[in-house]
């Protein structure tokens, strides 16, 4: 059998790979497609507000709109572990008021 495989190497069924990849990407895209339009804006503004106090990156705020039974649930996760305080920096907490915010 091993010799057989050596002579005729088995390729992984590529159609099965295609199906799996599609199922994963589409479940992700469908979830964001059905999300209300305000979520990206909310995320951006939250990022701006939190960013005045601690230094965070775009991916440290995650927003999800889900359902639990009959109630819609807006879930906001802000990861600040290891984030630097923005204390005293211009535009930061204790400094001048932020008029604009550039993530990054």
């Amino acid at each position, binding site marked *: 059998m091993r010799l057989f495989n050596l002579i005729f190497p088995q390729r992984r069924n590529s159609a099965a790979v295609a199906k799996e990849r599609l199922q994963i*990407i589409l479940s992700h895209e469908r979830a964001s497609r059905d999300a209300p339009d305000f979520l990206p804006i909310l995320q951006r503004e939250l990022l701006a507000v939190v960013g005045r106090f601690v230094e965070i990156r775009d991916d440290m705020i995650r927003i999800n709109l889900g359902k639990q039974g009959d109630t819609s649930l807006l879930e906001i996760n802000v990861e600040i572990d290891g984030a630097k305080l923005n204390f005293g920096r211009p535009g930061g907490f204790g400094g001048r008021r932020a008029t604009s915010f550039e993530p990054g």
Partner: protein
Amino acid sequence: MAKVIVVTSGKGGVGKTTTAAAFAAGLALRGHKTVVIDFDVGLRNLDLVMGCERRVVFDFINVINGDAKLNQALIKDKRNDLLYIFPTSQTRDKDALKREAVERVLDELTEQFDYIVCDSPAGIEHGAITALYFADSALIVTNPEVSSVRDSDRIIGILASKSRRAERNMEPVSLNLLLTRYAPDRVTRGEMLTVEDVREILSIPLLGVIPESESVLRASNTGTPIVFDEESPAGRAYLDAVARFLGEQRELRFVKPERKSFFRVLFGRA
């Protein structure tokens, strides 16, 4: 009242125009007065596939601008009395189709026809959205290939949210999956998504499977909708799809590898 059918896919090159031509001709062959409209402004091609490119005098934009009457722009097919072609314009202004103007034209067509088949451009820009906006039914043309399936999923989402039926909270656009360029022998070898795979991923009803066939290129070479080629497996598969669309039960054909007879190998006609 005519029924408006949009032929759409998101992705380009999957067989929308071939399908629009074949489906419209198929409906006409079944006795329904049908017009097929090219919505691909600037990239007119339906006329070539239908074989009437030298008979185009007025187009969609001329009618919208009031430079021509609708009946002056409609081209009657030479093979079937019930089939008409409404060519698009070659103008470079791809946003020339205003929704209200298109609505007026469709309202006028609906008086004369049983079916209005709209051949959508690829993409999800203005032209594609205009083509699907007025649809009662949609043929989602999909190849068994990852990018085509993903784009079809996107178009299905747009039909569910941006069509007139969605905006007015009417019964949703009826969705029909048409799997084209299907190669049963490659499916058997595990190189191509199966009918069941695609149906499961997109989860919309399957209207038909059109086998990959050399006859499709031959048909477009000569400007003949593929359903007029009675020998062609693709043509017969399209006629099956039309029959199902009209409510008939037909078994799927051409989804298993064909055993080539010695005769066929020798004379090699697909």
